[in-house]
């Protein structure tokens, strides 16, 4: 154990046989008509109601992440990467299995808390509060966030409602708010590819900073280059199962061979 400590191999996230199941209403086996729904209700026995369809998104994933690691999650669309991240963050309850973490992992992203009808200004405050920042913290970082987003470079846009922003501008502001907070265990879901070239370089730099401050980083991306650049270990998920877990280069090679890139 002393030897482990010397090497700094302290686990920060342990996933133990994690299964995640989504239940989808209104996608049941029958037709969508009212009579079909009624007859389903009549036939319903014990156990799962028939109108509900289960989607087994993550099937028995186990791994241990250590402090200082940057882990890339790769896999085709719908392979369960984002779902797994949410489960690690404790935002999506597991069906069975456990996720143990050191502190509170957070997803990088505040999109859901922002309101397009409000001004950029109010969204900065709202987003910061939603991420758990204190009012004083937001006040002190407000200018930094606005400057980083570059929203005000072309005029006073921060006082306009966010619905008036172009999609690129909105994405930049969202990233700037989200990246304002430091995290223990940080999870980034395809966040690198936002905005124009200039902003992308700036945001990649910010992510590297966050990485340094964070204990462990998870990155979901379809951009193999950004995984190669940032991650030293990769997990390859396919159909909710962990196909491969190892050094980035090795896993990416196998993945690229499989997907024919």
């Amino acid at each position, binding site marked *: 154990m002393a030897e482990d400590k010397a090497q700094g*191999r302290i686990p920060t996230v342990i996933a*133990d046989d994690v299964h995640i199941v989504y239940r989808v209403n209104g996608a049941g086996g029958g037709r969508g008509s009212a009579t079909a729904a009624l007859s389903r209700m009549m036939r319903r026995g014990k156990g799962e109601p028939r109108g509900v369809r289960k989607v087994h998104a993550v099937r028995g994933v186990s791994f*241990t992440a250590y402090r200082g690691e940057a882990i890339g999650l790769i896999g085709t669309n719908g392979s369960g990467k984002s779902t797994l991240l949410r489960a690690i963050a404790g935002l999506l309850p597991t069906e069975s299995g456990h996720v143990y973490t*050191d502190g509170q992992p957070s997803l990088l992203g505040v999109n859901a808390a922002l309101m397009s*009808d*409000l001004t950029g200004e109010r969204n900065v405050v709202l987003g910061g509060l939603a991420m758990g920042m*204190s009012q004083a913290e937001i006040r002190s970082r407000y200018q930094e966030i606005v400057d980083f987003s570059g929203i005000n470079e072309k005029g006073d846009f921060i006082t306009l409602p966010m619905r008036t922003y172009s999609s690129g501008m909105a994405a930049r502001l969202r990233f700037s708010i989200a990246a304002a907070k430091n995290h223990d265990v940080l999870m980034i879901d395809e966040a690198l590819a936002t905005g124009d070239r200039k902003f992308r370089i700036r945001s990649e730099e910010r992510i590297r900073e966050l990485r340094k401050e964070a204990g462990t980083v998870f990155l979901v991306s379809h951009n193999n280059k950004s995984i190669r650049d940032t991650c030293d270990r990769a997990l390859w998920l396919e159909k909710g199962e962990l196909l491969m877990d190892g050094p980035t280069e090795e896993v990416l090679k196998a993945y690229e061979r499989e997907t024919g890139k």
Partner: protein
Amino acid sequence: MSDTTHDGGVALGTPPSADEGLDAAQLAAKYGLTVSGARPGLFAYMRQLWGRRHFILAFSRAKLTAQYSQAKLGQLWQVVTPLLNACVYYLIFGLILGTREGIPHDVFVPFLVTGVFVFTFTQSSVMAGVRSIAGNLGLVRALHFPRASLPISFSLQQLQQLLFSMIVMVAVTVIFGSYPSLSWLLVIPALILQFVFNTGLALVMARLGSKTPDLAQLMPFVMRTWMYASGVMFSIPVMLKDKPAWIADVLQYNPAAIYMDLVRFAMIDGYGSENLPDHVWAAGLGWAVLLGVVGFVYFWKAEERYGRG
């Protein structure tokens, strides 16, 4: 099962040694890791919630502002909407159906308006509560915060909406001859009690609605039935004087009727204590404490399960 070709040790070039043989739970215990997303204790939960008070307030105010931000008249609708509502009820029940039996005309209009607004406060809190988790799954699945923040925030939004309605309420009351007096201060405790009651109810509905989104379809009918049974537009004792006394008692002691009566009693000169059931403040307090405590605990019990697909 997973077909793991390497364990986690590869990144640093050395396989783990001392930790080998420990299963996940033992390893977690050894390094002090905790289950992600576990439910905190009741008091810890209350502390977390208190820590998020600025978020709760900011979220409720943001929702309120966003509501009318695309309209030309903007925030003026905060006042115009309840005013129009009151006009419709006056037209139908006051003029056409004449439900003002037993109430003098100068009392009936403020009676109706306060009734509509106070009931709307409860009604919209419940409706927002049902959708507060189910309608904000994106938020629940993206960020960490005590989930009770959402229903509480929505009730708070309705409270602020009610405060706008109060402008209309005060105007109508004054126009019909009840002038501001000390008794108006009683509105404050009455609304605080109602707010606690509403929040408790919203918490209960939020948990039910997160499991069964269909409730959002059902609730308008339940709420309308409740409204007609609570004497929003008529006096319960007068209308039910021929029926067995217990019916009127049940209707009068239902929380919506209690809170309406408390506000009416405080604001309308011609609506004296003879219209109120006995121990009305105790009843108002009882309902608030009951729903507040039960709702909070009931919601907290499922804290770790909100956000499940």
